[in-house]
């Protein structure tokens, strides 16, 4: 039979193609099914609620003790044989990493840090082949390392080891790393906010210092020649006041302690202004134990002295009162000086006007933050009418963190 003519050859060729095509399809389907089976056997992404339970561990990822637990949780969640968390100095927490494998993991982690790029490294087969591990007989078959970066700088790595790591596992691990980065940034933000609060108190201290120290030392200098006993006392008051206003402990203080510091401050100011400055106190003993934000009254007294004596003619009279009003302690500071224009004051408190009302707005902000928005400063004033500043301090301290 001649294959070259007649339809017989054509039919045969078509049959041949058909057989080939069928075989190809079968092979394709087989491979596809195997791949699908492999994937379904391997790993399904963890549910959302188990991820969210990890968030606190993420925030404490590099704290000793906590990172071990994070590694264990991650290994359980992502079905990994071993997980290690490393910071810049080396491994801080590990789960499922035996003593003989530890060196290997350490080497992997350090290598990842050296790369300083935020990417997944995945190795199949013996990691020793990739010259990443010093141990050529490393029992781990494959591993993945992911760098952790916060605000652009590397802070550590997450290493996963398994006999066979699926793509899904590596992807989930990488997602976990992103989540961990977000949580770590959040922690940094909180820390930054605490620093800001401290900086606000620091700014008050800085505001106290230059003028006041200059004037105080000047006044003490004048007394050294004429009245050395008084000069000595003033130096002690000066020391007391600076010790209080530069102390570092705690955001809150008792009214009694703040009053003691104000006493030193007033004595120094009295030395400067002589009999022009008169301070009267009316403090009920019950209110002395009220917890107030540290340095919240002193700037107000300073303000009162400035308005009551410096910018007005004649004597300045300042009254400091404290009493109980139900569950509140109410402190008022009153001067009979020049007063202020309410509109300008409002602008100053809103922060639109910088200048010498920084103390007022600073105290206002800190009162609001410590006790809530309703515990703002109340200022009654008009030009020429003096100024009355009222602070209300709740004795019930709901969210007072100190």
């Amino acid at each position: 039979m001649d294959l070259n003519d007649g339809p017989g050859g054509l039919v045969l060729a078509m049959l041949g193609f058909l057989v080939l095509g069928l075989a190809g399809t079968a092979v394709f389907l087989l491979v596809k099914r195997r791949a699908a089976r492999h994937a379904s056997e391997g790993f399904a992404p963890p549910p959302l609620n188990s991820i969210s339970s990890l968030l606190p561990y993420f925030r404490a990822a590099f704290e000793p003790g906590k990172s071990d637990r994070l590694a264990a949780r991650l290994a359980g969640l992502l079905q990994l044989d071993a997980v290690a968390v490393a910071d810049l100095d080396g491994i801080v927490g590990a789960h499922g990493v035996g003593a003989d494998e530890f060196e290997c993991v350490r080497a992997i982690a350090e290598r990842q840090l050296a790369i300083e790029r935020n990417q997944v490294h995945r190795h199949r087969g013996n990691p020793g082949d990739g010259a990443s591990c010093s141990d050529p007989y490393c029992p781990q078959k494959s591993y993945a390392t992911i760098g952790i970066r916060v605000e652009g700088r590397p802070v550590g790595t997450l290493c996963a080891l398994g006999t066979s790591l699926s793509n899904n596992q590596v992807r989930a691990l990488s997602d976990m790393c992103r989540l961990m980065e977000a949580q770590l940034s959040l922690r940094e933000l909180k820390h930054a906010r605490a620093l800001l609060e401290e900086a606000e108190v620091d700014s008050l201290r800085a505001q106290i210092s230059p003028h006041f120290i200059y004037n105080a030392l000047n006044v003490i200098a004048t007394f050294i020649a004429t009245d050395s006993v008084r000069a000595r006392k003033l130096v002690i008051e000066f020391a007391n006041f600076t010790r209080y206003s530069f102390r570092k402990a705690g955001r809150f203080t008792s009214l009694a302690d703040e009053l003691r510091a104000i006493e030193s401050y007033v004595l120094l100011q009295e030395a400067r202004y002589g009999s022009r400055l008169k301070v009267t106190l009316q403090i009920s003993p019950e209110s002395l134990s009220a917890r107030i934000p540290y340095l919240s009254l002193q700037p107000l007294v300073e303000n009162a002295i400035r308005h009551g004596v410096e910018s007005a003619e004649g004597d300045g009279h300042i009254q400091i009162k404290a009493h109980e009003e139900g569950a509140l302690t109410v402190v008022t500071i009153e001067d009979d000086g020049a007063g202020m224009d309410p509109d300008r004051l409002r602008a100053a408190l809103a922060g639109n006007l910088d200048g010498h009302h920084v103390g007022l707005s600073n105290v206002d902000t800190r009162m609001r933050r410590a006790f809530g928005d309703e515990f703002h400063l109340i200022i009654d004033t008009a030009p020429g009418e003096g100024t009355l500043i009222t602070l209300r301090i709740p004795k019930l301290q709901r969210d007072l963190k100190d």
Partner: protein
Amino acid sequence: MNNVAGLLGLLVILALTILIGVYSRKFSRTTSDFYVASRAARPWWNASAIGGEYLASASYLGVAGLIAVAGRNALLIPLGYTAGFLLLLMFVAAPLRRSNAYTLPDFAQARFGSLAVRRVTAIVSIMICGTYVVPQLHGAALTVEVAAGLPPWTGSAAVAAVVCLTVVTGGMRSITFVQAIQFWFKVAAMAFPLAFMAFALMGRENGLAAVSMAFERLPGDSAEASPYRTVSLLMALILGTIGLPHVLARFYTSPDGGSARRTGTIVPCLVAGFYLLPMSYGVLGRAFMPAVRQGEADALVLLLPDLLLDGVPGAALSAVVAAGAFSAFLATTSGLIVALAAVVSQEFFHSDVAGFQWAAIISSASTLAVSLFTSSVSLVETVALIFAFSAATIVPMLILGIWWPRLTPSGAAAGMISGGSLVVTALVIHTIMGSTAGPVSDLLAQPAAWAVPTSFAIMIAVSLTSKPTNPARVERFMRQIHRPDFELPAKSHRKRDNTWT
């Protein structure tokens, strides 16, 4: 004649209270000396103020009556009232002060960091304060009836109105000085008539002999008395004192933990000294008013001076005793209403001045309403039930909360709720069943002896089975409340010379 003197005494006390209320601001010292201004209330003053707030109707009227009726067993009751302060001093005073908590809900939140426990504590505190006001108003009703011959409700209404007025207008409040004076006035108002009665008895034939025979003439125990009831009552009084919100709020005035402890040391001495007086009245009553029955017994203190002394001195001294009683009701009610209004305003209103005033008005009005629709058989019994409730709720929470770091929020809440419900259920069943002799009735009438241990046990069991929440925070809190106070270096330069100021 008698009624006129009594009425006069009561009116004088009411007027004085209002005057003090109006002028109370003057009691803060006006000075230009910081050292004087920043001097805290001395422990002695503070202790007297606690005595002023603590010694109420049950102590002033009830104890003497109960001794006259129930005999020797009742002599243990003042012991219970006093011994509670020893436990308060040993276990609670200083740590509670260092926690910087003003009210019990504040403490609960600081310790447990849980809003739910805070709410439970608030509700329990409100129940204790609210029910504690009622016997004060009952006492006032009785006093008005006996001393001035007026309808009973006028007394309750007068005390509630005056307290409400002074608290709302910024009056008596919790001013240490005023409450301390109230204590010494109570002592004087009982001691003077007692001294006169003693002189009169010494002049009388067989006077002192009758007193010495007081406990032998009548059978010592009434039908209802049983050892269990006495023990349970004592337990309620001793433990319940620790959980009284208005007493605990007073410790906030102390500047630090050590000073709170010094105050706590003086209080039991003052209170013990005071109780000698109502005990003497009780013994005199047993000797000279043998026919007194339960139900009338609470009036004994008011009737005794008139009975033993003739004519004008008797009437006048009766009036003095009645005035002292009224001062006791006013002081305690005022302390309770302030504590109540603080918690109510904090939980349900804004914690500003207006919220506090509304809370004070609502508190006094509602407690007055309750007191008008109820009547009291025995002041001591009523107060003992409130103490039992406090002992089964607040006290386990406070003691375990201060001394056992493992106590969890769920444990505290479970213990307080179950302890409180046990006491209330027992009392309701007892009221429905009526009072009879027998062990079941005993258990229901005085639930403290079994309800308090149960409450402790539930707190411990639930805490051990539940997971501790935020142990780091608890540890920080524990460090804060148990750390000794630091003494700052003495400031020698504070010795003043006035040559240059």
